[in-house]
């Protein structure tokens, strides 16, 4: 409310400018997708075809089933792990603290790839088990999809549950025990209802991520038709794409994710009243067999989560002849090939992700500042639009951008710019939410003090608001960077020849079964992600998860 001198001040026009940009690069593509789905192809609309052809319905049902399965397994790992981490100390507990990082550090393509290197048709474990006479089911399909996605997404349940348990007042539990119930029963009766909304909300988040997942789905889902993969395949099909069907499939995925997000919001809103903020319970130190058992179980989860990192490192330096990995025979050949023969994917990634991070930080800082501090008639719309990409999978965003900008007044298809735009749009909610969190905690008076001392509003923003926001801007920049360099689902839709990024290149190499070469790019990708994180947390002491 500060500095609102007239209704049409500079902040109003900045809001309007951002809205126009979002309308062009977000709303217009999505509306193009939605409206195209109602167009007719051979006399029937996309929706009529969707509901009459069992292959489409199968994809929808499979996506929902996979979502449910992964959500269930993620909860089975994440919830007990969070409970143990919150309530007990045991040897090796510090290891669990690094879990949230694994989701950031290990790109989905690499997770899928390394699991394949272990359990795929040619995998290390598969062959070793075959030697002793045990035949594993094929990893391409439900087995692989569920396993890999569970180990990628359980950390979301873990983080959500941990926060809820820590916020829960242990005294309530003690009070219930004092009233004469046994410890287990009082836990069940008192704590479960209180933390349930947070657990459910994180589970639903996992569901939306599974529904939108492309990287793992496309690498491992050859025999299981899934919505995201089918949407992509319809888009790239050799007959030159099918605008109506790809739009319909994209619309179905928007509807599915939006419905689940809507449910999630309601649960979160209700849960807010139910969480009793109080002092958390001091963790109990465990000894003996229980401690050893827990330590072992937790270590197992952590090891499995970090396995991709080890595998990709080993793979990058392992000699390979075509698809056959010669484990134990070390070489630097793969790395040399990456850096000397075809460094383009690395350079492309750095350029596109760098530009997108910069742009994303500017847009999300400005947007959150307007939404939180300079409310006007337009800011609620801005808030709403900034959160819209949450309901859109990368594939949908990519298809929308291609359909909107391959002809007409603004042609972006075939440029690097469309990749940058796709990145920025995808990460927008993330950046805005991060920046808003800091702004809500900053009193308006700091800015007003600056203005009262004679510094004009816009300069005041740069002189006093920006410095206070800087640590969180840097944290957000790093998070946007790490998730952008690993981005596959939107970029693979919008990229054109010569503009491959590392994840795209890795995906193509996996598809050709060239795992060593893929590992070499994977190692560079992981380094690209890890270096800024390490720098930020060790040198600049920035808490990356402060606003989560």
């Amino acid at each position, binding site marked *: 409310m500060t500095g609102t001198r007239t209704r049409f001040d500079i902040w109003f026009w900045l809001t309007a400018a951002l809205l126009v940009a979002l309308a062009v690069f977000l709303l217009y593509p999505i509306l193009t997708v939605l409206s195209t789905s109602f167009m007719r192809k051979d006399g029937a609309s996309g929706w009529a075809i969707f509901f009459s052809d069992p292959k489409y319905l199968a994809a929808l049902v499979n996506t929902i089933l996979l979502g449910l399965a992964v959500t269930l397994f993620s909860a089975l790992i994440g919830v007990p792990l969070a409970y143990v981490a919150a309530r007990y100390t045991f040897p090796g507990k510090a290891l669990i603290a690094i879990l949230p990082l694994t989701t950031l550090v290990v790109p989905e393509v690499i997770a899928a790839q390394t699991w394949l290197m272990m359990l795929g048709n040619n995998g290390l474990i598969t062959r070793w088990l075959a030697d002793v006479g045990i035949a594993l089911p094929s990893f391409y399909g439900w087995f692989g999809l569920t396993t890999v996605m569970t180990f990628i997404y359980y950390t979301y349940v873990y983080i959500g549950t941990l926060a809820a348990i820590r916020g829960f007042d242990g005294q309530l539990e003690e009070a219930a025990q004092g009233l004469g119930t046994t410890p287990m029963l009082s836990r069940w009766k008192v704590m479960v209802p209180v933390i349930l909304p947070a657990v459910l909300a994180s589970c639903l988040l996992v569901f939306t991520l599974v529904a939108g997942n492309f990287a793992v789905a496309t690498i491992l889902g050859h025999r299981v038709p899934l919505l995201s993969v089918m949407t992509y395949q319809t888009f790239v099909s050799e007959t030159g794409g099918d605008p109506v069907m790809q739009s319909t499939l994209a619309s179905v995925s928007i509807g599915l994710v939006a419905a689940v997000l809507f449910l999630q919001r309601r649960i979160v809103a209700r849960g807010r009243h139910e969480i009793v903020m109080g002092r958390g319970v001091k963790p109990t130190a465990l000894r003996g067999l229980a401690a050893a058992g827990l330590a072992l179980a937790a270590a197992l989860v952590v090891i499995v989560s970090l396995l991709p990192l080890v595998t990709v490192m080993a793979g990058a330096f392992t000699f390979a002849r075509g698809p056959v990995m010669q484990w134990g025979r070390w070489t630097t050949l793969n790395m040399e090939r990456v850096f000397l023969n075809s460094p383009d994917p690395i350079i492309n990634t750095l350029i596109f992700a760098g530009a997108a991070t910069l742009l994303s930080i500017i847009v999300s800082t400005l947007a959150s500042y307007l939404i939180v501090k300079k409310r006007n008639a337009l800011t609620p719309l801005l808030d709403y639009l900034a959160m819209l990409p949450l309901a859109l999978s990368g594939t949908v965003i990519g298809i929308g951008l291609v359909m909107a900008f391959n002809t007409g007044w603004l042609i972006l298809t075939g440029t690097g710019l469309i990749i940058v735009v796709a990145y920025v749009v995808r990460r927008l909610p993330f950046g805005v939410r991060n920046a808003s969190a800091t702004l809500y905690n900053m009193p308006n008076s700091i800015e007003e003090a600056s203005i009262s001392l*004679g510094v004009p509003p816009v300069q005041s923003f740069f002189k006093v608001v920006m410095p206070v926001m800087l640590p969180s801007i840097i944290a957000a920049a790093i998070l946007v960077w790490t998730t952008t360099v690993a981005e596959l689902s939107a970029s693979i839709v919008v990229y054109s020849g010569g503009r491959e990024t590392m994840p795209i290149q890795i995906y193509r190499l996996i598809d050709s079964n060239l795992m060593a070469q893929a590992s070499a790019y994977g190692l560079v990708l992981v380094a690209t992600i890890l270096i800024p994180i390490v720098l930020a947390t060790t040198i600049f002491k920035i808490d990356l998860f402060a606003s989560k």
Partner: protein
Amino acid sequence: MIEIEELAVAYGRTRVIEDLSLSIGNGQFFTLLGPSGCGKTTLLRALAGFLPVVSGRILFGEKDVSRTPAHQRDIGMVFQDYALFPDKTVFDNVAYGLRARRVPEDSVKVRVGEHLERVGLAAFPDRRPAELSGGQRQRVALARALVIRPTLLLMDEPLSNLDAKLRVQVRETISDLQREAGITTVFVTHDQEEALAMSDMIGLMKLGKLEQVGAPVDIYRWPVSTYVADFVGGANILPVDLVDPLDEGTAKSLSLGSLRITATVPRPLAPGRAFVIARPEDIAIGPSQSGSARIMSRQYLGDLTLYKVTLGDSLSISVAQHGPAHDRHAVGEQVSLVFDVEKTLVVAQ
């Protein structure tokens, strides 16, 4: 001279202040006093330029600043939450306004040093706000606002985040510095004690309007309404029904339940409902042991005793007794009450 003429200020569509006029003399310490929601902070923010003027004018001297943006009004402002720049040192916080005015750095050094000296923080120029106590932070904020020698100093409840002891200390610092610098000051508070202690003039606000403007002694001694009397100092407010009109003057006789009292009427009154205002310390418990009043409870407070006295069935009156043997009356005792003629007022509302 600050002149406010028929001012209206709104938050969105709600008018918070309407038709408010006020003039504040040069160098005056003017306090806007009132309960929360009375519009005092709104008026302050309008003076600062953080809220647009809907209609009316604000003049700083000869200059109409009604449409001047905040950063061009040449004000100094002190906030309730200090509003120090957290990333800057004490020195840089105080120097901020001078640097914005492009004062040469060597004279910045001198003036900042001088002001830090005055608020007793010359020893900590390199500390950051997080390393200071609440009282120290508010002193830095004060120095930061004063160092630019503003036309007008605005303070928005600057003491309310401090504990009781610090509040008195910082209060004295503010008063001393303000007097020394002679800067016209508008101070917002809901604390009547602060207002009485610090101000040259007090403007008591009620629902977006100025209920009474006057020197502290006048506000306390001559409240224009029961609202003022109640808010500043507290008083017994006793309804009376007048049969005949009352002219202004002293020693007017009227009946209060079974009691005949004499009181002062500051303004003529029409027949109908009126109110007697009597502060607890302006009522004496008379020598008679057979009066119509009866002591219901007493609180011994050391230097005084506070009695709750009923008169008839319905009237309950607080009486404070000072002086020797102020605690001599017992609960249940029948007593007579003597109202101070000069200090007991009758007002219309």
